[in-house]
């Protein structure tokens, strides 16, 4: 059963003289619980695709359907709330809030929903990701790998159905990158989440159940599951 679907998705950037087609009619379907890797060269449109799937950017045309709802039609705040409840993000540069400690960063999306965090669940994630000792540390006191694990914990904390990871190992050395990917996969399986990961690293992509290749804004391989 498809949890995430794009239909004829396009994103054009008009620079005045030329029109850049970042995405050019992408049709993609992701099944519930699937771990999908999107690979492609730099500028191929893979990050744009991920942003469209997470509602971080607006498509020029086409639709993005998440859990049966067309998010491209949603208003800004409606989309934000939908994203908060259904999608978790992991960015290449972690995007942690510098003024908050590890725990505060992790529980923020839950608290934004006005919900008291499920302590046992959060503690479980923290210990699964090996962050117990660093629970009250500030982001600038953590290594890159630790920061990415915090980002992962934050993405998992709100129990989203989908996790979108944008080059999660891009800033990490290969060993740490492997650790983070392993954690992403195991936690995803453990908490029953669908994972879409962007990477330009073939080795990392191999961790996924399915790989699609994108070039010049079009899917070249593995578009349909």
């Amino acid at each position: 059963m498809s949890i995430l679907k794009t239909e004829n998705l396009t994103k054009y950037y008009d620079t005045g003289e030329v029109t850049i087609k970042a995405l050019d009619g992408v049709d993609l379907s992701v099944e519930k619980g699937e771990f999908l890797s999107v690979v492609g060269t730099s500028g191929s449109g893979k990050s744009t695709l991920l942003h469209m799937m997470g509602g971080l950017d607006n498509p020029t045309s086409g639709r993005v359907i998440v859990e049966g709802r067309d998010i491209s039609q949603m208003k800004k705040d409606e989309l934000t709330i939908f994203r908060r409840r259904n999608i978790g993000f992991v960015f290449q540069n972690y995007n942690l809030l510098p003024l908050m400690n590890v725990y505060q960063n992790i529980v923020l999306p839950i608290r934004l929903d006005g919900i008291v965090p499920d302590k046992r669940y959060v503690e479980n994630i923290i210990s699964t990701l090996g962050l117990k000792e660093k629970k009250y540390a500030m982001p600038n006191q953590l290594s890159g790998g630790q920061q990415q694990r915090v980002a992962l914990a934050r993405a998992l904390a709100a129990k989203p159905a989908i996790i979108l990871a944008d080059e999660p190992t891009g800033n990490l050395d290969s060993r740490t990158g492997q650790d983070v990917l392993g954690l992403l996969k195991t936690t995803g399986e453990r908490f029953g989440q669908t994972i879409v990961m962007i990477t330009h690293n073939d080795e990392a992509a191999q961790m996924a159940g399915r790989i699609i290749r994108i070039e010049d804004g079009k899917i070249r391989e593995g578009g349909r599951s």
Partner: protein
Amino acid sequence: MIQVKNNQVVREVALITYRGNRKRNFLSVFAMVLTTFMITTVIALGVSYWDTIQKRQLRMEGMDYDVELTEPRENQVELVRDMEEVKYAGLSVKCAIVEEYQGKMLDKARLYWVDDICFEKQVMPALEHCEGKYPEKEDEIMLSLHLLKAMGIEQPQIGMSLPLSYYTLKANEGDTEYTKEFTLCGFYSDYTGKNRGYVSKAFFETTGVKQTDFTQGALKIKLKDKLYTAKEMDEMSRALKFHSKQILIGNPEFIEEFLRMAGILAGMLVMIFASGYLFIYNTMYISISKDIRYYGQLKTMGMTSRQLKKIVYTQAFIHSVLGIPAGLLLAGIVTKQGIPKALSLINPVLDVSNGVTVWPGVFFIAGLFALATSLISVGTPAKIAGDCSPVEAMRHFAGGGKAGKRRPREGASLYSMAFSNMFRDKKQAVIIFLSFVTGICVFCMMNEYILLNDGKFILEGISAWDMEIVNQTTLEEERQIFTEDMVSEISALPGVKSVEKVYTALAKVPKGEGVFGEYFKELYGTRYAPGNYEEDMETYRENPERSLLGDAGFVAVGEEEFLELNKHVNQKVDEEAFFQGRAAVVTKILTEGDDGMTGKTVDFYLPQGKNPKEAYSITITGVDTEGSYNPAYFTRGEAPSIIVSENLAKKLIQEPYVEKLKVKYEKSYDKETEKEVKEIFQGENRVSFDSKIENYEEMRESESQAKVLGYTLGGIVGLLSICNYLNMMAASVLNRSKEFGILESIGMTTGQIKKVLRTEGVGYGVISILLALPFGFILSYLVFQNTNMYRTAYAFPWGSNLLLFAGVMAVCAIVPGAVYKKMYKSSVVEQLRKGDA
């Protein structure tokens, strides 16, 4: 070292850099324009405001002089005029009192003769408006509009005939009344609120009054230097060799007062300069800090620190070249055109040329200051750009702030997030607080100053009553004009809140030496002494009935008047004891302190009482030591007045004589009610009115002028603070672009982000107000202490200050959200990218 000719390329890079930041340049130039404009306008307005207030003080005194010599002799006049320190000296002699015009009794309408110097140089500058000329012929007369109005003449015409009854002030002449047909040759308005007029020399000579007559003649001396010391006054006194009771009246404390006032103005200017400095510094700092990454790139390409600094300074210089002349021009237009126009809109009869004084030096100083501020303010950012290593510069992120160690805390509410944000950039927080505290303090000072010059406030301080109606027959026949019916009729008017009667009678004090002896002794020591103390006291002891020392005023008041009176006594009088007839208050004049009267019992009898020979006793429990308040109008010479309750007066006197009615309206300054009250007395010429509304009308013009100027001054400083805050918040919000992107990506709605920003703003507002409050209080009290020309009681202008605080809070709360709304219309991804750029 080989000299490399690279000036050209550095200049080119500077210009390219400058052109590349149009939006930021606009803000920086705007900061320059605004600051230059504000400094110029503030100085110009300050000068103009001071000028206006001075002018008003001059007008309220009715004449322009610094020192007064009483009863001058001819040789003394010559001597004074020849003195080096004297600018000019005019002679003024009070020679007659007008009593009546067409059956209408007039109140203390004094006629003066002044010489040419006095009229041209000293009287004229103090007049608001003047028509006609000074009297030359014996029957010519010039009257104040105030007096003409009291005479019932609303539209005076030059040449109109005025039959007047008057008596002269010739010594020992008695109360001989004369009548004469005068011709009106001029009229004027001033701020003294007094019934006055001027007569010709020919008429003055017919009165027989001499310039040397006690208290009538005076030489009004204007000094070259307004600031003089007590020592200089003593020297002048010695040189003049005084006769009998002559004195030199002056205000040597003026030098101290002047310095205080100058200190306050200088302090305000420092604050304004500080606001301007903070604004320019802030704009420049933010602008340069944002560019530091770019400077890092230039450095990696081989540009030296000196060259980078030069680029920064060139930018500041361009901002100044564009901003300063524009600011000066704007200030020129506003001070020359805008404000006088605003003033004339408020008051069409105002002479707009008197509106604002600007001398060219103001423009020069303001321009210089703005340029210096601009160049000084880029010093630190230029140093940062020039000194840091290329890699550091590339990593530099303005306003990003560093997260330090924090205590372990679980959870993060929107409020704690806002609180953390407020202090993440300490420099930003300090500048916001400083700028707001400065603005609020200046505004508090302005509010106090405006309040002290507020006509209504001054009048409230002088009298609690809206209208006082005086029975003018008091000194003669004592006709009972204010009947019970009349009082009931006034009370029944819907706009009237209360009416109180002030009763007066003569009290005889046969053995008063023990109570009033000390007072009389001190009184005889003053210049106004009626005679020889020892001799008069001896006569009093022997025959108290015949001695004037045995006379005292007997005044009776009601409840509201008692409350007013109780504000002026040396110790509070018990209300119950007063109304039960056990306690009395004594008012007196010309001496200080209570002269030992408090607590003593005075024995008296009332010749007009039910039992004229019966003696009564009452204890004096309070004394008006400053002689500043007397509920009655006509005092009995220098004798003290014993003030008792109206109950007691009614008990002791069959039908006590009502000298005065005091009326309070439901709504102060209610013209309709005033008209109705006056209508009740239509056709009654033996009463005079002292109306708060009329007094206020006379003060309104200069009050509104003071208000416009004062609020403009305060408003400009306020605008500076707001612009500074806006600028800081815009920079702060812009710098947090990525953070907002992150927050949105993890599910924070725009509403929640705005709430955080609003909370931050409210936090800045609350802390700024709390920080400013103690300073505001102290400064406003200092303003009060040093500029309280009308001796009013201290009052903190709560109304206008609360409005100010509300304004600050509103700005603080609204600005951050509005800035965010304006800046972030892009998608989350774009925000994240902007932060990474």
